[in-house]
């Protein structure tokens, strides 16, 4: 099994020695101790494992580490800059868009990915883009509200 010696994560080159066939989720969590992405289903159907790979929301549980080699991986830990939360993170807090919080990193990154390609999403756009993310606690309405609020905030900042 070819090994992976390095991944680009959150703007840094991280040295590794991992079997490339292992899931990106497992390498991020177990080798790099970036536990923000979560295991929820192992089949890419719940979204808890979502990270951004070259800006695209990606289910890391069904992505091999090898497939992420050479690409820019962003996890929830890399979202806040210099201690300042990302507008989506701020919006989730302000809207109380979480209960147990386990789905939250995946939700936030899926939202960041959506807003990067569609800064002006309709409610239908949000629902469609997030349809792969499960919130078993049922915080859906507030998650939608948070994402809409974040979209407004990000346009206001001229981002």
């Amino acid at each position: 099994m070819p090994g992976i010696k390095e991944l680009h994560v959150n703007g840094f080159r991280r040295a590794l020695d991992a079997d490339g066939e292992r899931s990106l989720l497992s390498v991020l969590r177990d080798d790099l101790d970036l536990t923000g992405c979560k295991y929820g289903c192992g089949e890419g159907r719940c979204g808890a494992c979502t990270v951004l790979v070259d800006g695209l929301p990606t289910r890391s549980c069904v992505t091999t580490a090898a497939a992420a080699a050479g690409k820019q991986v962003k996890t929830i830990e890399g979202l806040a800059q210099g201690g300042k939360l990302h507008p989506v993170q701020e919006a989730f807090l302000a809207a109380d868009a979480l209960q147990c919080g386990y789905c939250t990193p995946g939700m936030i990154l899926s939202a960041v990915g959506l807003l990067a390609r569609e800064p002006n999403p309709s409610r239908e756009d949000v629902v469609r883009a997030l349809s792969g993310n499960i919130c078993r606690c049922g915080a859906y309405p507030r998650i939608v509200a948070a994402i809409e609020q974040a979209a407004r905030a990000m346009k206001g900042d001229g981002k």
Partner: protein
Amino acid sequence: MSEPPGSDFLLEPERYELLGDALANLELSRRGFLRTGGSLVVALLLGEAAAQQPPAERRQRPFGGPLPREIGAWLHVGADSAVTAFTGKVEIGQNIRTSLAQVVAEELRLPPARVRLVMADTQLTPYDFGTAGSQTTPMMAAQFRRVGAAARELLLDLAAEQHKIERGSLRLADGKVVGPEGKPSVDFGELTRGQKLVKLIDDKIPTTSPDRWTVAGTSAPKADGREFVTGEHRYASDVRRPGMLFGKVLRPPSFKAELLSVQTKDAEAMPGVTVLHDGAFVGVAAPTEQAAVRALAAVRAEWKEVGGPSADELFKYLKEHPGAAGRGFGGPSRSTHGSIKEGLAAADKKREATYTVAYIAHAPLEPRAAVAEWADGNLTVWTGTQRPFGVRGDLANALGVPAERVRVIVPDMGAGYGGKHTGEAAVEAARLARAAGKPVKVVWTREEEFTWAYFRPAGLIEVTAGVKADGTLTAWEYHNYNSGASSMRLPYEAPNYHVEFHSADSPLRQGSYRALAATANTFARETTLDDLAHDLGLDPLAFRLKNLKDARLAAVLEAAARQFGWGKAKAPAGHGFGIACGTEKGSYVATCAEAAVDRDSGRVRVVRLATAFECGAVLNPGHLKNQIEGAVVMGLGGALFEAIEFAGGKILNPRFSAYRVPRFSDIPVLETVLLDRKDLPSAGAGETPIVAVAPAVGNALFQAAGVRIRSLPMVPRGLKQT
């Protein structure tokens, strides 16, 4: 200076002999309270009446009467004025970490962020029977109000004494005791003057009345919220210990299969792999999860399978296979009044109906997980469970060590919904860690979580009811098989009733699920009531109100109806309106639903749900609304499409690609009305809001399409109209 124990008194910490176990549990020295400067600890003793667990053995004291043995809640004020509250309750997303801080902050006149909670650590927090049954708000919050109030009174006493000021002129403000015109202004921590003070109180402390709340009763934001949106929070499945291995456990191919033989040589030969074979338990631990999966795959086992009934035969099976003598949680298993025969004879309209309810899964997004670490014969386990002390006992038994050597720590969890009362992963991790001589992490796969946990019980319900033309009930006969007794009691007036729960030999492992059998029983009851109203040509709301004497239930019905606009307009073509209500655990819910059915495709869409809820004095309106919405969303799943499929002792749909749960696209317009009764004691809200969703939607579908559905889930494959 002997004072009767159990009343207010200040105690030097070393008076252990007065309270034995209760105080020893406080274990002041181990908590480092004595490390620097002074501290104040206020703890509430639970007497027999207040204790939730069966009465422990009593110790006689000179003044007679039983001695309180357990400490339910305690509060620590440090020399640095930091306020810390300790509770054995668990945070599972219901936001009690926030609301409990609020009630303490209220009594101490502090902002909620100034109160930190230490939760669910068997070494650091008081004993607790478990976070379940909607009990945290009525019991634990009430206890914390008392310890907070007692701490306040004590701080005022100390300040008055130390500064020779009239007590009445002092008040608490922003973490200090302040006198007239702000002088003196003394930090809480200064008042202990380097002493270690322990105050033990009983239930009788007066607390701030809810109509004067300024901190409790507000929508304070989620405590530690930032840690969840940044990924900093470590759930049990995120815990990492030096030298940690990853564990996997061999599962039988079907339920009750017997392990005939197992060959582990190939697995043992793999580098870094430990194999444990102990009776029916076979597990592996390896340096990576990938290696553990491979090691497990290398284990060769032979099983004798016994099969089992399929979902198709289930309800007949439940009726024909009674279980041990009927014991339903949530109420007496049988209740009778008058004569059903006479009641039915007096009826103008009668209804006989059978309802079925499928097994469903909790499916918490974080599956069972545990990290176990042994050191010098002491075991520490980080795990997600709603019963940390219960699991500590389970670990002690399973591993054959005294409970005092076991510490269970529950970080804020990735949900539970009643599905994590047990500690399977904890025991598995502990066994593997002991065998490997290193810490071991066990995280259940989603398939394991769907198969080897426990389900919400399936149920068969038979109802016979009679009603007079004037809309009054004459007879109500009700039998629930297997599902349970919660909400089986009829909240409507009926002179003749017989309500009975029959336990059954469930083919699948079953247990607590949010609201227990209240969902099934409310569905059967409120659907039957809808049928009766229809038979009489009466409005479903008016029919219910006519037969209700419970004013609190009537209030939520009317509030939901008002919010929904019940009776204001007819439903558009293909749409229908439905209403239902229920009460459980001291709180009240009513839901109005609008549903639409596409005649050609049979596709069902829930358009709108309006829910009214009342639980006494509300601790945090925002978080209460979140709980209600979350329960309603969860209820939609069980109402419409969730079902465990099984045959031959196997679960057939143990993954999210085959077991449908509510997603963004399933969410209707959700409206929530809170009835804040500051004049009533606060009740819990984690469960009750789920119970009226299914019947409200079912009643709406009946109006929309003329089809009456008596099974949950109602429309797993849409609605075919003939």
